[in-house]
Structure formats: C-alpha cells, structure tokens
C-alpha cells in the first residue's frame, strides 16, 4: 500500500473500519471530532452503523449493545466526555465484552482547554469507572502508530473479552503524517456469547459475569494478571549505556526522541524508554537499562506528575526518579537536555 | 355450550407458585376462588378453586402475576 498523508484522527478512524469495526456511537468534542465526522460517512460506506448519540452516556451504551450483539464497536471522546464514558466502560468490562475506546487527551480538569496534554493518565490506567477492572491502554506516538495500535486494540479486546483504550492526545490526533493503511478485515460477529436471539439454544445473558463465574475474585484477578504479564509493549532508545533515561509516551516521547539526539550529539548519554502500553506499564523494559543509570526523568505534559508513580515502581527506585512537566506548554527538547545535564551535574 | 364441552376444560393450579396476593379472588366473576387454610412451601396462603362454580373463563390465569393457573383440556 502506498503512503498517504492523513490526520491522526482520520487515520485512526479508517484503521478502525479496516480492523472490522462496524459500529460507532459517540458525541463530538474537540479535539476528537474528526473521528465521528469521518465515521459518519465511512461507516455506512463499509456497511456499518454510525450514530451521533445524544450524549456520551448514550453513545457508550450503544457501543455496549453493538458489542453484546457480537460486532466490533468503538467510541471516542476527550477529557470531559471521557469522564462520562466511565460508567459504560465499567459495565462493558464487567460484562467481559470487547470494545475499543479512544481518549484524545486535552488539557485540564473541568472544561480545561482543547490543546494537547497528558493529564488523563490516571483515569486511563487506573480505570475511571467503578470496581475491579482494567483496560489495556495503548499510547500511539505517531499517526502510523495510531493506525497500527487500533488494530491491536480490537484484536486484544477480542482475545481477552475486555475493553481496550487508545490514549491519544490533541497533537497526535490533529497532526498529519504519511501513513500506510492496512488491508480491510472482516470480523465474524457470531461469537457464541453474542446476543442474537436464542434460536433453540439456552438464552444468553450479557451482564456482570460475576453472577455466573465461580470464585470470581480469583478468576478476574487471574485474567488481569495474565494481561499484565503478556501485554507490555515499549520502545527503548539507547538505554543500555544511558546515564539519564527519559520516560515518556505519546507526543512527549517525540520531543524526548529529539532530546536524545541532541544530547548524544553533545556527548551526554541520554536514553529514552517509551511505554506503548500504559496499562500494563512496561516494567520489563527497565531490565534493558544500564544498571549504572544515574537517574530517570519522567516527562509528562500535565500540571501534576502522574506516570512518574509507575516509573518509580517499575525501576524499584534503583536510581533517583525526577519529573519534567510540560503542563500547558510544549517543552523544548533542548530544555529536557539541559535538565538531564543539571541532574548529572548535581550528582557529581 | 353443551355439557360435554363444559367439562372438556378445567382450571388447574400450581399452588407452589402462589404468593397469596388474592388478585384472582378479586377478579373471579363467579366467586369460585377463596383463600384456603393451606400454606405452601413459600409460606403463602394459597387459593382454592370451587370447581362447581368455576366456568373456566381463565380470568384467574389472566390476572395472576405468578402463573398459578392454567386451563387444560380434561
């Protein structure tokens, strides 16, 4: 397939259709509105269904219904709307249905603002909804990865019968990059658990599986433990000899990649660990790091440090862990380098 | 209605399903239903059918929330 220039949101939408997604129910909110806009024409073209729901609450429950019927279904939102999806996500997780969610992060709590940020980390990785569930959380750092990970998200949702999340941000969603799209795939909606009328067989109940599974506590813990062990994904850049390892995902990892290049050009041994899954956090990646590393620096575009807590746990505090916060402003890659140098100088 | 047709159907009841609400007694047009002194396994006073008065209209079937009554061919 040839490369095309596509906006992150558009490319992700097309990739969802090509991954066999045939239902979208959702509500516009900047900076993810291109997703419902794109799917409003593309879904019917592909034989699927698009509904502009009256609210995120309704949209997520339409997804619940379509997923219960056995079809690949998704919705997307941002910040305030993502908060409204949490109720439905908890139910879908509890019913052990596959579905894909997209949160294109924007800045701030409350209304906040529409520019890029990474402030939904806790909500995404800890489960913004109630009870005992987790979502596999994928953090694309490019338009191409938005495409690639949406396929993975659908496949993993099916494999574990569990909702999965693409945690994007306004930068990745709004920017254009060349992208290669995958071939169209069709999904068989007739799983044995899918509601479609009982047709002479015992009737099916899609509800919290805890009602029907013995020793549910052990069962559900086992399921999420298995995911945590098997599904960690990351990319590491020059960490084996690094004195300072940056940890960053999504758009901030792009800035950190540049920082690594700049630093290496100056003889500063900087490396980068880029989590591709945020849950499970790729703790295994830290085994690749130079055992003599002098510090970790968690680079996050939020006002409060969040991912840094996972970094501290994953590195077992074998080296100091510091934070570099972008907040409302895109940091300069050179400022990250300066910070790393300052950390090293302070240790001398 | 001939005599033989009248006796070809009869109302039956599954007393174990009864919750003793008495809605059937209120609605029976022939006063054929009444609370008995029998208590079922759920602890409810169940309803007796006076088959002499019963005309098999099945209103008790229609109003019963608990599917106690059925009209069956004899």
């Amino acid at each position, binding site marked *: 397939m040839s*490369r095309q*220039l596509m906006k992150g949101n558009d490319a992700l939408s097309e990739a969802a259709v090509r991954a066999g997604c045939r239902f979208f129910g959702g509500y516009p909110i*900047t*900076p993810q509105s291109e997703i419902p806009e794109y799917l409003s024409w593309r879904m019917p073209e592909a034989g699927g269904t698009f509904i502009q729901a009256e609210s995120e609450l309704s949209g997520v429950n339409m997804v619940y219904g379509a997923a219960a019927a056995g079809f690949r279904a998704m919705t997307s939102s941002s910040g305030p709307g993502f908060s409204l999806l949490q109720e439905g996500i908890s139910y879908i997780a509890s019913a052990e249905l596959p579905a894909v969610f997209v949160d294109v992060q924007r800045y701030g709590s409350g209304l906040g603002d*529409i*520019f890029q940020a990474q402030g939904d980390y806790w909500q995404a990785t800890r489960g913004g909804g109630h009870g005992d569930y987790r979502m596999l959380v994928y953090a694309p750092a490019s338009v191409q990865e938005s495409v690639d990970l949406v396929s993975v998200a659908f496949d993993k949702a099916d494999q574990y019968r569990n909702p999965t999340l693409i945690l994007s941000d306004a*930068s990745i969603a*709004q*920017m*254009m*990059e*060349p992208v290669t799209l995958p071939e169209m795939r069709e999904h068989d909606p007739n799983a044995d658990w899918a509601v479609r009328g009982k047709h002479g067989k015992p009737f099916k109940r899609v509800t919290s599986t805890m009602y029907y599974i013995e020793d549910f506590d052990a069962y559900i813990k086992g399921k999420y433990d298995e995911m945590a062990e098997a599904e960690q994904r990351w990319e590491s850049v020059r960490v084996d000899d690094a004195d300072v390892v940056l940890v960053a995902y999504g*758009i901030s990892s*792009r*800035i950190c*990649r*540049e920082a690594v*290049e700049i630093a290496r050009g100056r003889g500063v041994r900087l490396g980068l660990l880029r989590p591709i899954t945020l849950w499970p956090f790729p703790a295994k990646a830290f085994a690749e790091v130079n055992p003599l590393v002098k510090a970790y620096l968690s680079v996050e575009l939020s006002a409060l440090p969040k991912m840094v807590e996972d970094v501290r746990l994953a590195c077992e505090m074998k080296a100091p862990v510091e934070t570099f916060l972008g907040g409302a402003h*895109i940091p*300069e*890659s050179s400022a990250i380098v300066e910070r790393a140098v300052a950390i090293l100088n302070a240790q001398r | 209605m001939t005599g033989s047709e009248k006796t070809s159907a009869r109302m039956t009841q599954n007393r174990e399903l009864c919750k003793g609400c008495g809605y059937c007694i209120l609605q029976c047009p022939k006063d054929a239903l009444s609370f008995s002194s029998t208590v079922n396994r759920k602890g409810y006073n169940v309803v007796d059918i006076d088959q002499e008065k019963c005309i098999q209209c099945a209103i008790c079937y229609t109003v019963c929330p608990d599917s106690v009554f059925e009209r069956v061919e004899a």
Partner: protein
Amino acid sequence: MLSITCAGFGGQGVLTAGLLLAHVSMESGKEITWVPSYGSEMRGGTASCRLRIGDEPILNPFFSAIDALIGMNQDSVDTFQGAIAPGGVLIANSSMVRGGAFRDDIRVVEVPATEIAGELKNPRGANLVMLGAVIGATGLVDAEEFADGIDAYFNKKGRNNPLNRECFMRGVQAAANA
C-alpha cells in the same frame, strides 16, 4: 530537515498551502509532519500550520526555530518573524506586509502574492504564489516537479485550475529574482 511555518488570516489558504507542501514533499519521498493551529483560531484571526520536512523520520513535530516562514499578512510576520532562525528565510506577501521592519540576519523574499494572483485572475491563488516563492528560495523540491504535484493534487480532487500552476511558477520566479 526544514522547519516551516505558514501563517495568515483565515481564508488566505494558509492551511492548504501547508498541506500542498506536505503532500508534494511526501510524493517526492520526504518525511513530513504537519501540525495545525486549531480551535478558536478557526473562527477568524491568524491561522497557522507548522511543517517539518526531511529525509529521515521526523522526531519532534514541534520547533521553536523556523527555517522558513510563509507570512501571508502583517500579523503573521509580526508574530513569527522573531522565531526565524538566523540565516532563515521569510517569504512575505508584500501585498499585505508593508511594515518594512525586517530582521537583517534573515533572508527576506518579498512577493506581492495577492496582486500577482489578482493579475492572473486567480485571486484565491495567492497561497500558491507564496508556495512557489518558498520552493524557489529553499530548493526543497525541484520547482517543475512540485508544480506537477500541485496539478496532481487538484486533479485528484477533480478541480484543477491551470492558473494554479501559473501562480506557483510566478512565485518561483519572484524568489529567483529576489
């Protein structure tokens, strides 16, 4: 790698100019990132987009030092001129940019893009004149090849105007003469 900002007011085709630059660069095998300003700015005022174009995959799509600025109006030149790297290029639409106070450590190419587009009876083609100037000034892609790319882009959309190419080539010439 080149870091380019296109800026002007809404309706001047600023985002389209950036898109064309990105599309045609991609067709000639380059790596690109294109980042729009969006949101409240969609409702008037200054619109801008920033591109990075290079031979290697682009790491950071953001930059603070601009290699080339396409300034379609006075506001955008006032806003972004200070961010141009020393030795960088400013393509100024001199039909609209008459402030005159240009930095002396940058190369300034003044092109009366709006007037040229008007002369060519293609008033919406001012952005293409500016694009021609940036290609002429930077040598990013061969000018004829780029012009073919513009034709292909608009043909694909089913609405190519032969005057688009003419606007573009006039921009190329303007840069050559500057």
